[in-house]
């Protein structure tokens, strides 16, 4: 594709090249950087329709939602990419993380979480995040060993078994925490909002919720960390190689199953982390909250292309943004628009935006 674009204008005259360039460039972006193309279109279309200040708030909220979605979805996409295991019980891990983290915040360290000091809040928040990740990770380990390992390579049985496992996990959550909703108040330093001073041009007077900014920062940090692990470390090389061809990695003498187990546990832990972030955002925990998020998670990983971390990130951003934009214009259509986006992208590129594997 790149060869074509450089080679074609050479035969033309200079004037034609000047005229053609932007279109060629646009086509090139559309075909080779579909995720950026789509993101750009969405941002431009929405800024044209919505008032700029509202748009800015919506965009930041959308990115925050995207960041949380990315946390929840990244584990599932890697699990699929590496071992082609479709884990439909992923939503249960999201709930599990939310409940584990919520327990820390609402019952164990509620004194710290309620105090106005930022440092004391951290004493509650950091253990809550860690505890959520650890609980989800440990349950993920057990789940992989007990439920998923016997059905490698059989998609139909994986779907059946993980659906069953998801029921069991969800019921166990109800057994442990009871069937009622649990309210979780956000720690003091995370609630509230920043007011951008009025005198600033363009962005003056808008209100930014603190929690969303924190979610954006955490999401970006984890995305960066994951990219670093995947691109720069030995484990990352193995994971990428495993996604490309599992057999070849096995032939080289690596125990791919251990690697997969690690990825599964890490993915479950990330789901737990995303769950507790989402729980704090909603400030209400229900055993089915993970299942409700599963739809967005599935749309995200399909949009991005199963198995791709970058695709997952951009997919999450797209889903988060379209949810907020459409939700602002017509709240009833938010879910329909999300699914519509997915169907549209699938019609255009059946492999997703940044495909890595041949399904």
């Amino acid at each position, binding site marked *: 594709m790149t060869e074509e674009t450089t080679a074609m204008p050479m035969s033309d005259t200079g004037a034609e090249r000047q005229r053609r360039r932007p279109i060629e460039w646009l086509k090139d972006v559309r075909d080779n950087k579909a995720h950026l193309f789509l993101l750009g279109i969405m941002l431009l279309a929405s800024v044209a329709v919505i008032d700029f200040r509202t748009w800015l708030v919506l965009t930041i909220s959308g990115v925050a939602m995207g960041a949380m979605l990315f946390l929840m979805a990244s584990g599932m996409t890697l699990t699929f990419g590496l071992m082609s295991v479709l884990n439909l019980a992923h939503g249960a891990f999201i709930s599990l993380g939310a409940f584990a983290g919520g327990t820390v915040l609402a019952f164990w360290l509620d004194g710290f979480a309620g105090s106005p000091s930022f440092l004391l809040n951290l004493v509650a928040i950091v253990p809550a995040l860690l505890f959520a990740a650890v609980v989800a990770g440990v349950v993920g380990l057990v789940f992989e060993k007990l439920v998923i390992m016997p059905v490698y390579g059989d998609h139909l049985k994986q*779907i059946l078994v993980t659906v069953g496992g998801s*029921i*069991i996990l969800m019921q166990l959550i109800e057994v442990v925490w009871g069937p009622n909703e649990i309210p979780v108040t956000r720690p003091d330093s995370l609630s509230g909002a920043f007011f951008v001073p009025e005198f600033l041009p363009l962005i003056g007077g808008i209100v930014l919720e603190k929690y969303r900014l924190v979610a954006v920062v955490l999401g970006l940090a984890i995305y960066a960390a994951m990219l670093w692990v995947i691109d720069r470390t030995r484990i990352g090389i193995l994971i990428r190689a495993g996604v490309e061809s599992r057999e070849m990695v096995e032939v080289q003498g690596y125990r791919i199953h251990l690697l997969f187990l690690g990825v599964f546990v890490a993915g479950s832990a990330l789901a737990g982390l995303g769950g507790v972030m989402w729980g704090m955002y909603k400030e209400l925990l229900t055993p089915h909250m993970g299942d409700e998020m599963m739809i967005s998670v599935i*749309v995200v*990983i399909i949009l991005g292309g199963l198995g791709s971390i970058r695709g997952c990130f951009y997919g999450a951003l797209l889903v988060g943004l379209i949810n907020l934009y459409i939700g602002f214009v017509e709240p009833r259509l938010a879910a329909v628009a999300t*699914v519509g986006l*997915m169907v549209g992208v699938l019609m255009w590129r*059946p492999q997703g935006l940044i495909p890595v594997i041949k399904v």
Partner: protein
Amino acid sequence: MLRRILSEDYPRSKPLTALLLIIVVSLVLGPFLFDGIRAFTTLGMICVFIMVVAAYDLMLGYTHIVSFAHTMFFGIGAYGVAMAIESMGNSFGAILVGLVGALAISFVLSLLLGLLSLRVKAIFFALVTLAVAFAFLSLVTQLYHVTGGEDGMRVRVPRELGPAFRPFEAPLPGIDIPTLLKGLLTQPWNLGQVWQESQFDLRFNGRNVMYYVLVAMATGVFLFLLRLVNSPFGRVLQAIRENEFRAEALGYRTVVYRTAVVILAALVATLAGAGFALINRYVNPENTLNFELMVFILLMCVIGGMGTVYGAVVGSTLFILAQNYLQDLLKWVGQYTAGIPVVENLLGADHWLLWFGVLFVLSVYFFPAGVVGQLRIWSMRRRSRQSPPPSGPAAEPEPEPQT
């Protein structure tokens, strides 16, 4: 005669035949054998879900298409009838209009879904249908001025199908089987009194008429699907299930077959949804469109036995009985475990689904063929043990249970 009706697809196992006979007799004589509104509701639900699950089995068991949009079509049928009655009054014409409209919508939607499976591969299809079904659910919930939103809609059935309609003046005799069995077990010496106690008067009303309409529908759908899967069309479906590439190489247009199956299953589910609206007389997103309901259908199909239409009958009967009566059993067990801290909670009556989930996962591992498939495997083994095949061991290969 029987051969024609069952399309030469016999149960092929004595215990299975017995089980099916019990189920069929219970369903056909249902209102005369079980007293009480709860038993009646259970019977109605079994009839509805036999249709839904048999259609799902056509996709899942015979073609290995995993679709999570089956409840969507079920809901379209239920809401179609409910909305038609809401706007046109409770006449049979309204029901017909609602049903035809719902079937048309289902046809178009399932055609689109089927064509989408042209573009995406099998595993994507499952995820896409899940997302589409969710979008539909949220649309129905949001458009509350048309659909009633979360509250749902009451379906005012025509008078002939309602409790006010009495085709017979005198009450009909009925025998309550549970009471009879209980009496026989606890006081067999008192036969006369037990017999007396278990008799009840059945006041046959419009709801019973509707029930028999459902029984007729379920029978028709079941026999039609049995005929279908044993036709050349069904053989092609099984070929696609075993090896799609090879089926295509043999010259079958697998896309056409897959799309046809998706459409057929959707239409049957729509029909069952209409029946559900009329017998339940109340539709809301939770009892027609919920994801949990979809999972239940999946469970029924797998537990009954994928790839055997009989599995739909056994699976939906077992599951709905469990759904309605496992709580009672757990409550009864709960009397003895009250006080033990963790066990008490685990065996609480609300957690019947937990045990069903465990049972389901175990059955996928150890009995992947489901109840029907496993009974058939057992009886086939017994038969091959009794009469060793004349032409060496290869004549009748013993099917190994897949692990």
